[in-house]
């Protein structure tokens, strides 16, 4: 569904993405992993229209979408989240979510001024939808809090929540799991699976938690130094010596010196 | 010979005046840029702070002159400079204690600081005028010229002369030194780094052990010193009138932004661009061309690109054009 051909993106002298080519199949949940600084986020940014590439193309269902503005891509059903949360900080959590649905009646001034009833009806529907998402993400107690006041993890949840507010075809998730409590993350994983199976969303997700990747993704693409290093199922990738060397590592060398048991109580 | 004449003409009417005016703007822009770099807001009272510091220097200079103290060929005002700096620094520190510190605690938005600085500007505006009055004041003494047009002509044997005032020289030298010093201070010294860190991420700076009070104090003192220096050099070259100092504010802002606000080198380069564009685009090149073109080919028209009516507009056109090409200024300034 998405084809990335020979993408190059440079910052000054640095080639952050250096001729990466990859394909994201319709209906799959594709994982994208790689060491810090491999160029994963940069690749996302190029695909989602935030940066123009220096070379290469991006195709969506065969159509060249290279360099289209992000809002145009959104209209084509391409959604993304941000690694460093980009909340609307002076809007409440609910408003953050309600902003997302496209082409709302009340978003043109004419309707806002002269069609109040149509706007109100649509607002009700959007609000209901937002409340559903809020419940699912366990954000109920902060629904009316300003998003800027959320905890780090809550902001990440909000990032994810926005993608659930609209019908998407393909969703790019940039480390939605980082900083999210594992129990909740498990539920999120299940939701992703459900969206994928029931609604046919295609996902591409960057993640460093291999358990999470393992539960959801097939295939997994590994990037390193701006290029695609390898690609395959989770097991294949985990077994790949190069991946272990550059990314996974071999576990802890040290063992903690367990000293005392903590005092009871507190 | 003709080429030399053309050069002399150009230097006298375009090169030197623009360089001197640019340096005057640069000194002001350095102060504005410093406050922006450290305290993260546009300080509107800078023009009036310049006037305030200069006012104290003027009063002190008069005192010194009355006592017969002087610096020979150099203006006495240089001797009085520390007094002005001390007064300006005192004022900024007080205004910080009473005004800006509160908004820092409130973590107010930059625009609130900016409007508060407009309030401080009104205060300073009134104080200066009540103390010394709104009139023109002269306090320059010493040698006005390094060499005059006549001196130059005699020395070179050219038809065209060049005049170079001592205050122009002083200003140019001061601007370059101040820029280099400030750049070095911010980039290399411990305090400078602390200031940049504080401006980047205030809370994190605290976690690194930076003393915010000290950072803020240093920034204000430096800004006050720069403002006073700028004001005094300008006043020596032209004259001291509070309203003119207020009017300097816009070109100073333009310079700082154009170069990339927060960057001392940018402030100076921006200032020269503003100054040179004002003078060069509105200069009438007729005589200049007359020297370069063959005998008798002196053009009829004035060869003026734009009338001086639009001089102020010209510098802003250039500003906008540059910003379109480099949206955060020539040296990629801060964005808040």
């Amino acid at each position, binding site marked *: 569904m998405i084809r990335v051909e020979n993408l190059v993106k440079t910052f000054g002298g640095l080639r952050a993405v250096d001729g990466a080519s990859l394909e994201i199949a319709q209906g799959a949940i594709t994982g994208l992993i790689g060491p810090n600084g491999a160029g994963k986020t940069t690749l996302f940014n190029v695909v989602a229209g935030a940066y123009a590439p220096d070379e290469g193309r991006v195709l969506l269902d065969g159509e060249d979408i290279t360099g289209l503005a992000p809002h145009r891509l959104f209209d084509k059903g391409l959604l993304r989240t941000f690694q460093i949360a980009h909340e*609307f900080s002076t809007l409440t959590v609910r*408003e953050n979510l309600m*902003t997302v649905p496209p082409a*709302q009646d009340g978003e043109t001034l004419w309707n806002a001024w002269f069609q109040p009833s149509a706007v109100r009806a649509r607002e009700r529907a959007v609000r209901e939808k937002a409340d559903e998402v809020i419940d699912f993400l366990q954000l109920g107690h902060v629904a009316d809090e300003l998003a800027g006041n959320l905890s780090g993890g809550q902001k990440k949840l909000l990032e994810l929540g926005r993608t659930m507010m609209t019908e998407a075809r393909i969703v790019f998730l940039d480390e939605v799991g980082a900083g999210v409590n594992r129990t909740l993350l498990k539920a999120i994983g299940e939701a992703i699976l459900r969206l994928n199976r029931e609604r046919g969303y295609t996902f591409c997700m960057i993640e460093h938690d291999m358990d999470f990747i393992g539960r959801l993704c097939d295939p997994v693409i590994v990037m390193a130094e701006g290029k695609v290093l390898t690609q395959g199922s989770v097991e294949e990738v985990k077994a790949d010596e190069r991946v272990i060397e550059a990314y996974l590592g071999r576990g802890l060398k040290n063992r903690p010196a367990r000293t005392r048991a903590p005092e009871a109580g507190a | 010979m003709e080429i030399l004449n053309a050069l002399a003409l150009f230097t006298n009417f375009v090169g030197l005046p623009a360089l001197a005016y640019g340096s005057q703007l640069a000194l002001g822009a350095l102060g504005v840029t410093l406050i922006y770099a450290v305290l993260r807001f546009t300080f509107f009272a800078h023009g009036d702070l310049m006037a305030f510091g200069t006012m104290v220097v003027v009063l002190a200079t008069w005192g010194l002159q009355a006592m017969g103290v002087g610096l020979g060929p150099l203006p006495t005002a240089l001797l009085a400079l520390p007094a002005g700096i001390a007064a300006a620094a005192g004022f900024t520190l007080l205004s910080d204690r009473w005004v800006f510190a509160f908004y820092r605690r409130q973590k*107010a938005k930059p625009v609130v600081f900016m*409007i508060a600085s407009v309030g401080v500007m009104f205060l300073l505006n009134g104080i200066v005028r009540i103390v010394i009055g709104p009139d023109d004041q002269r306090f320059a003494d010493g040698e006005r010229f390094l060499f005059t047009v006549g001196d130059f002509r005699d020395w070179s044997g050219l038809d065209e002369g060049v005049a170079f005032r001592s205050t122009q020289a002083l200003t140019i030298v001061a601007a370059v030194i101040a820029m280099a010093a400030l750049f070095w201070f911010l980039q290399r010294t411990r305090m400078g780094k602390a200031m940049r860190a504080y401006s980047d991420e205030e809370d994190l700076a605290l976690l690194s052990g930076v003393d915010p009070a000290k950072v803020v104090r240093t920034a204000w003192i430096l800004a006050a010193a720069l403002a006073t220096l700028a004001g005094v050099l300008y006043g020596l070259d032209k004259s001291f009138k509070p309203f003119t100092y207020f009017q300097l504010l816009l070109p100073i802002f333009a310079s700082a932004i154009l170069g990339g606000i927060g960057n001392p080198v940018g402030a100076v380069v921006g200032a020269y661009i503003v100054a040179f564009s004002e003078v060069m685009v509105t200069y009438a090149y007729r005589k200049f061309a007359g020297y370069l073109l063959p005998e008798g080919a002196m053009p009829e028209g004035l060869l003026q690109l734009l009338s001086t009516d639009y001089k102020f507009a010209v510098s802003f*056109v250039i500003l906008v054009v540059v910003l379109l090409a480099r949206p955060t200024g020539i040296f990629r300034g801060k964005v808040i």
Partner: protein
Amino acid sequence: MSWLQGPARGPLLYLVMALLLALVGVAQSWNVALAILNMCLVSAVMALGANIAWGYAGLMNVGLMGFAALGGLAVVLAAQPPVPEAWSAGGLRLLGTGAALVASVAAIALVRARLAKGRLRALATVAMVVGAYALVRFLFDPATDAIEAVDPAVTGYLGGLGLPSATGWLLGGLLAAGAAWLIGKVSLGLRSDYFAIATLGISEIVIAVLKNEDWLARGVKNVTGLPRPAPYEVDLQASAAFVERAQAWGLDPAEASGIVVKLCYAALFAAVLGVLLWLAERALNSPWGRMMRAIRDNEVAAEAMGKDVVKRRLQTFILGSAVVGIGGAMMVSFDGQFTPGAYQPLRFTFLIWVMVIVGGSGNNWGSVLGGFLIWFVWIEAEPVGRWLMDAATAWAPEGNAFAAHLQEGAAHMRMIFMGAILLLVLRFAPRGLMPEKVRR
């Protein structure tokens, strides 16, 4: 003080404002109070315009002065009688220049569309721009010279359309909107302070043009005696019926005429402000407003959520500027004259900004209140400042040199008082008197 934070805060502050104006009415005179009120209304319109751009979309428009001036120009163009001599002297040629300009722009656009991107296109563009400039100047200069030569002391310009004064307000809004479109297209790519300084620069350019292009609105020679949307005091005083009525009320006819005229203005201004405020509030509280606030908060995310940030920004910038233009037009109607030399950033840009921030940015009612309060202080600072200075020097015996020196500077107490009030208000309401509402 907690009741000051509740929902009653807004109405209460407006009540205080009304009391302040009433106090002036009683202590000074109702004519003064109404004169201040009228400009309060005008200032409120301008502050509202600034707030639309800043509070909704985070656009720091520091070119308010330019838009206000364009609004003023519109009143001249709409309301002044045309100058037939000037039209016959150079009007046609000027129209021809306009046509030539449009044709050149079209030709350039056409050529650029036809040619592929590259050096040839760049070269052709430059050549055509130079050619067009020369052509336009060739047509333009003699035309304007001819126009400006027509009785320069009195006219020397094309005049206007001779329409009722208030149509100038509408035209002012349109003119400002058009300029905003152009300016926005060019500079909305810039961020925060860089955008601010660009708008500041452009407003200076607008003023420079208005000052120096005499054929348009007489430049620094000013256009005075603009027709009014309200009756003239002298006419009222000349009307026997009015004089009788005034005397029946126990009022001096001169005083009464002043009051009536000012009330007429106040009614007109209040109507305009009311409509604008209604539209602004309605927009802000709709999904449109939510979208704008989202864009203001984080444009990258808004763009990724499918919002056409560039277009929306431009839209808001145009709307805000148009409102400022309307305010500028109203002010010129009220002053009865258009004086380009009077447009100074301190008064027409920064003072408006002070109004927005003191009132509470992002809150329309707050900006309007800010417009009222700051204009009130701006005017009343003068007598209060003098009074303060008198009080401060009352201790001194006659002829005390120090007191005399202070007295000389009494006029400048105005600035000190203004600054002090500004700082005090901002101290006790750091987010503005009526902060932006959090919609829970």
